[in-house]
């Protein structure tokens, strides 16, 4: 019996689009020499790889390197997503950022936003129980949902409500009384008074528990009674079947498909309980499942995913001194997703709602501009790699080679016909300038396609 240790490169490309930010073929080919399960393990075991040295960025961008500017955190985040060797860590942080959406527009303190993001990154692949407990003590979250004004005798239910509705169980699985009980349990969970900003700038805050402001009293919450504190509420919440399904649906919706699948979500929910709420175990099951492997090109890419994938392909911003990373934040914002500043606590409407006329124009313009310029090192690499595939190309051979090079992309027949019709009869020979132009034109057409909006 022979067992192949190689992996179909289309499947590798799929895994890398979902668990990472996508790769060009010249980077996928070495990975396809490995077993699929090993690729998954390498993504899950983030500790095998060093984090990128984003401090270098500050050295080269003194004019921007200001921790008091939350844009700086955003720029560093893009740099990191492009350069990290732990892409799953960033993907998961992005997922939780949408689920636990907290926005700079209200928090205003850039250091707290930075710490919030670092918490999502540090805990996002760990245990959901720990993550939810950390979230409940996160200063940015506390301020974002007015938890510091949730007092004994004058509750503010904001965090109690969103914890149940948006962060763990979902609507329909608790009562208004449960919301009130949760709010009472979280009284006294607050943040330290920050030192006034002036004259020395922002100071970060920290979580603090104030026993004198806590409602020590019997509470009835989700069918249990006791003198509950906020951590008791978290303990009870994570044990709920609704929470298991909600977390499972979050992972499924982010990594597999925009439309939910009950059977797959049930299976993931079982892993949630069997593993004691371990997110890495859930993701291991997910990435190795048939439903994941078959879920090709059925998700609309978020703006951040589209931007980072485009830059991963075109090779910009590999060096910390390269100017202009700020424009990536601008581009993503114009497409409807400004990281660290979601529109509401619900996060961004995803799926098809990423596409409206304004957002679509921004997406197409960005990807076409960045992939159509052979002055970018990654574009140059891809042209050269395409050129090594054959001595000469017909239009169809060239289209197929370019789709492959961009990360094993697929186009519908109609799109193929239109592009081939435009190209006409050609005999492209690598090495001359017209070949480079023919390739970049193909890149532009693919980047402007409907299919490029998905992954």
């Amino acid at each position, binding site marked *: 019996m022979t067992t192949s240790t190689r992996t179909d490169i289309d499947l590798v490309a799929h895994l890398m689009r979902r668990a990472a930010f996508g790769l060009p073929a010249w980077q996928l080919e070495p990975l396809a020499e490995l077993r699929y399960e090993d690729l998954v393990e390498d993504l899950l075991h983030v500790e095998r790889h060093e984090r990128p040295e984003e401090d270098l960025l500050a050295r080269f961008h003194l004019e921007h390197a200001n921790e008091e500017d939350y844009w700086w955190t955003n720029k560093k985040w893009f740099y990191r997503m492009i350069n990290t060797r732990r892409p799953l860590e960033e993907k998961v942080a992005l997922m939780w950022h949408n689920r636990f959406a907290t926005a700079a*527009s209200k928090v205003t303190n850039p250091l707290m936003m930075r710490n919030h993001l670092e918490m999502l990154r540090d805990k996002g692949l760990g245990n959901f129980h720990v993550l939810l407990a950390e979230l409940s003590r996160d200063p940015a979250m506390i301020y974002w*949902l*007015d938890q*510091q*004004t949730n*007092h004994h005798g*004058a*509750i*503010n*239910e*904001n965090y109690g*409500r969103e914890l149940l*509705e948006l962060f763990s169980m979902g*609507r329909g699985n608790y009562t*208004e009384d449960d919301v009130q009980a949760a709010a009472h349990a979280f009284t006294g969970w607050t943040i330290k008074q920050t030192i006034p900003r002036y004259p020395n700038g922002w100071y970060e805050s920290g979580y603090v528990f104030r026993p004198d402001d806590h409602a020590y009293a019997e509470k009835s919450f989700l069918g249990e009674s006791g003198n509950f504190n906020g951590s008791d509420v978290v303990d009870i919440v994570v044990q709920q079947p609704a929470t298991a399904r909600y977390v499972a649906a979050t992972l499924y919706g982010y990594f597999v498909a*925009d439309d939910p699948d009950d059977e797959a979500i049930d299976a993931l929910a079982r892993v949630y309980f069997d593993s004691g709420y371990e997110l890495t175990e859930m993701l291991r099951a997910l990435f190795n499942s048939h439903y994941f492997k078959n879920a090709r090109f*059925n998700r*609309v890419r978020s703006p951040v995913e589209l931007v980072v994938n485009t830059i991963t392909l075109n090779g910009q911003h590999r060096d910390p001194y390269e100017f202009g990373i700020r424009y990536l934040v601008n581009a993503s914002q*114009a497409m*409807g997703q400004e990281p660290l500043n979601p*529109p*509401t*606590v*619900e996060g961004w*409407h995803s*799926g*098809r*709602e990423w*596409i*409206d*006329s*304004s*957002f*679509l*124009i*921004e997406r*197409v*313009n960005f990807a*076409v*501009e960045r992939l*159509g310029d052979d002055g970018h090192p990654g574009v140059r690499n891809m042209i050269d790699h395409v050129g090594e595939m054959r001595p000469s190309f017909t239009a169809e051979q060239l289209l197929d080679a370019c789709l492959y090079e961009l990360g094993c992309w697929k186009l*519908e027949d*109609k*799109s193929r016909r*239109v*592009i081939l*019709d*435009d190209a006409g009869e050609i005999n492209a020979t690598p090495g001359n300038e017209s070949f480079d132009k023919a390739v970049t*034109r193909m890149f*532009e*057409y693919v980047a*402007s*396609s*409907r*299919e490029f*909006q*998905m992954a």
Partner: protein
Amino acid sequence: MTPTNGNTIKDPVIVVLQLSGGNDFMNTVVPYGEPLYYDFRKTVGIPETDLLHLDSQYGLHPALTSFKEIYDQGNLAIIAGVGYPNPDRSHFRSMDIWHTAEPTNVIPEGWLGRIIRELDPQKQNVCTGISFGQGLPRAMYLSGTPALSVRDLESYGLLTSMSGRRQRRAINVFTRMYAPEEFAEANMTLGHIGQTGVDALAGVDMLKPVPAQYSSSVEYADDQLAQSLRGIAQVHTANIGTRVFYAELGGFDTHGAQMGTQTGLLRQLSRAVSDFFADLREHNASEEVVMLVFTEFGRRVRDNGNGTDHGSGGGAFLIGERVNGGMYAEYPSLDPANQLSGDLHYNNDFRSIYSTIIDDWFHMQPEPIVNGSFERFQGMISPLN
């Protein structure tokens, strides 16, 4: 529908302005004549002397100076106590309900999308509905019916990194790749992206000349709402047949620090609406415009010491020269015996407002658009023709 030019018969236009986050209606139209108000709003209450008095019972928030003027001119209708059965205190669900006019089931189709389909059943004008600001609201979404989202009119363009023959070729390829198939595509999402691309391109062609044609003596503020309303004025006065406009002002989720936050937002609202209508009047293009201002819910009757939590029983405004101003609908009782677990009880279904607009303004059958029959507010709108 062919674009109309405004010198003969004008077509009715609606501008929907969404206040996101749950505007506290009790501090927008304040029932100062009711002593219970000051009992419930010990810290988040507005003193009687600060209010813009409408009568001996009610006063507008002091920041709403232009609303007071419009009210005095008889063109501001106030609809208090608006809601729907079984109020949902989730922002998102409640906003969805307002957008889709469907309180029971979650559906993706919006009420304005259905109006746009009625206005332009042959899909001849992609500019029939335009949303300004960040993203297309669900209210305007209806599969197969075009609705544009515009962030900035001045920079609206496709494949702008190219020029000349290269750009023309690329736009040609784009057009053909995105063109709808004769039969429905198996992949619905690709179909949606395709239609959006086709509409976007048609919209670019129609909207590109708009900014250059516009001039006005009105100087709008720099905030996003003002700029959105300026864009709406530009498109409306260009007479390209847009009948449904949308704009948004967010930030009303005032669990904390409400007094300052709401004041700032209402000040923006007041100035932007005032500038917008002044601009339209300058272009002799105001009569055919009605503006609906709504929010997804009101807030709790009793303040939390610093702000107010999510409630029900919000309120809405209808503004325009064809609007017969006044207080429509009874203000909900603040008496604890009449409250709905700490909230104002709604007296009026929001679909009554929609039905009034659909019937009296657009002369359409409201029932299929709002999924039911709801009482109209008689006389609130004088039809255009």
